[in-house]
């Protein structure tokens, strides 16, 4: 079970998650400091490691819309948070799977900041309100990548098979 650390509105853009002015910073080891930089208080909490691993960001529709910048995923992955959103923009979803950031699509999710959620194989259970919400399965096409632990180990295995 994990706590909802922030509840966000619809259409959270990658500019919001990782502002463009920090895009010269690319390494996953360096991007976490800029997560939600312009949400000053939340950024400070993330940087102070105020939240345990697995803590949940709840988003609305179209989470992660906009730019293809992968920093928007690596910055969240660095804080070991998970994202539960009503819908997720294509490139952000793909990048999340590729990097192993936990994302859950849950169109009917109802949760407030502070609620305790449990993410099961196909549901999101709000233990605070006692309500259960169905997940939308992630693209089946991407299962191999998830099983391999991300696109880098997946590609490495494919590359080695090709050269074998």
């Amino acid at each position, binding site marked *: 079970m994990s706590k909802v650390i922030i509840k966000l509105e619809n259409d959270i853009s990658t*500019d919001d998650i990782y502002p463009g002015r920090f895009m*010269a910073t690319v390494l996953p080891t360096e991007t976490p400091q800029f997560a939600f930089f312009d949400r000053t208080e939340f950024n400070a909490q993330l940087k102070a490691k105020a939240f345990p691993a697995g803590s949940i960001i709840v988003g609305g529709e179209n989470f992660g819309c906009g730019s293809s910048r992968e920093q928007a995923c690596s910055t969240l992955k660095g804080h070991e948070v998970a994202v539960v959103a009503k819908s997720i923009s294509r490139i952000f979803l793909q990048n999340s799977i590729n990097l192993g950031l936990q994302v859950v699509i849950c169109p009917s999710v109802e949760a407030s900041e502070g609620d305790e959620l449990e993410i099961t194989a196909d549901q999101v259970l709000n233990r605070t309100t006692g309500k259960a919400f169905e997940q939308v399965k992630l693209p089946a*096409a991407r299962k191999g990548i998830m099983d391999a632990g991300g696109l880098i180990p997946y590609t490495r295995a494919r*590359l080695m098979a090709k050269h074998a």
Partner: protein
Amino acid sequence: MGMTVVEKILARASGLPSVKVGDVVEPQVDLAMSHENAALVINQFQEVFQGTGIEPKVWDPSRIAIIFDHRVPAESPKTATNHKKIRDFVKANGITKFHDVRGDVGGICHQILPEYGYVRPGFVVVGTDSHTTSHGALGAFSFGVGATEMASAWSLGIAVNIEVPATIKVVVKGEFPSMVGPKDLILHLIGQLTAQGANFKVLEFHGETIRKMSTSGRIAICNMSVEAGATSGIVPGDEETVRYLREEASVTDAITCISPDADATYVRTVEIDVSALVPQIACPHMVDNVKPIDQVLGTKIQQIVIGSCTNGRLDDLADAAAILRGKKVAEGTRMLVFPASSKIFAQALDKGYIHDFMRAGAVVMNSGCGPCLGVHEGALGDGESALSTTNRNFKGRMGNPTGFVYLCSPVVAAASAITGVITDPRTGA
């Protein structure tokens, strides 16, 4: 069962007789494009090879394009060092489609690719930039990916595990009224579809208006297809595509255009008649917050931006220059112009547009992404508003989270520069 254009392209590139929505395919990549974020791609690419004993070489250096555009010239030592790292990689791997910080062959990636004939109808194009959808204007299936996915393409030469997307058919008819054009059409469409209305889908453009539209206009509409969430926008290749590639991109080899089958399946058809369309404005802070211009007339603007991969081409500059010729940018308003490529900059110089802009008081900058993504130059002050021909208006987009960005066509931007408020180019008021 018939196929859409993207289904046909994916079938060809995957070596299959046919594909349908939901199939998982692994198409050969015809072109893989990156800009400054190649620095991250290189990092991920090297990680792929780590511990394998295989020499880290890209699968085909002739199919990789790298264009510096996001922060040119470098705004910081960090960017300059990223540029340096990429230059070294380009050299070591023999990548030929490389466009450095230059005043002759430099420019924005989404302009350079068509301009140099790097994209052809039927190609599968991946790019580490969400506006890679632009190249659908030439009949290619072209979509944005993250840096790690690009590293995978550089390693394997394929896009791994691609689910064949569904397609929305957009049929556009009617003639554009004066001072209304492709930008207004795409803003109107995004307003109608919403910012996620085409998520995981392709927008395939048809109709007499599209057939008559220049490649420049088609690039603008495909460029912004991603603002409705689309995986890709695509205009099936036609006579205009061939004309553009032959006359403007000096392509001499065979060009094969691909049309959809008459019985192709679409998830939805949207019809738009542009003959009554008025100038459209996307208001802060979402691209689908689109209003007809009369609802925002008179809004005070501190910064006008004309340029970007959306609207920085020669016809855009010509239209804007015609309005500004002999006029002055209003006091209290600053105007920045970014031609989309060095070639366009030179053409605009020859045609006198650059003089028109400068005499009016605009600052003409080198080709590049400029203030569009708020990393380099042209940032907004606290609470300031920009009216821009670019493609995004998210909070913080122009470098300041307290700023406001309105999106419009080049003629609306030019007319508004003279008055300092959002102004209808049809009336000048």
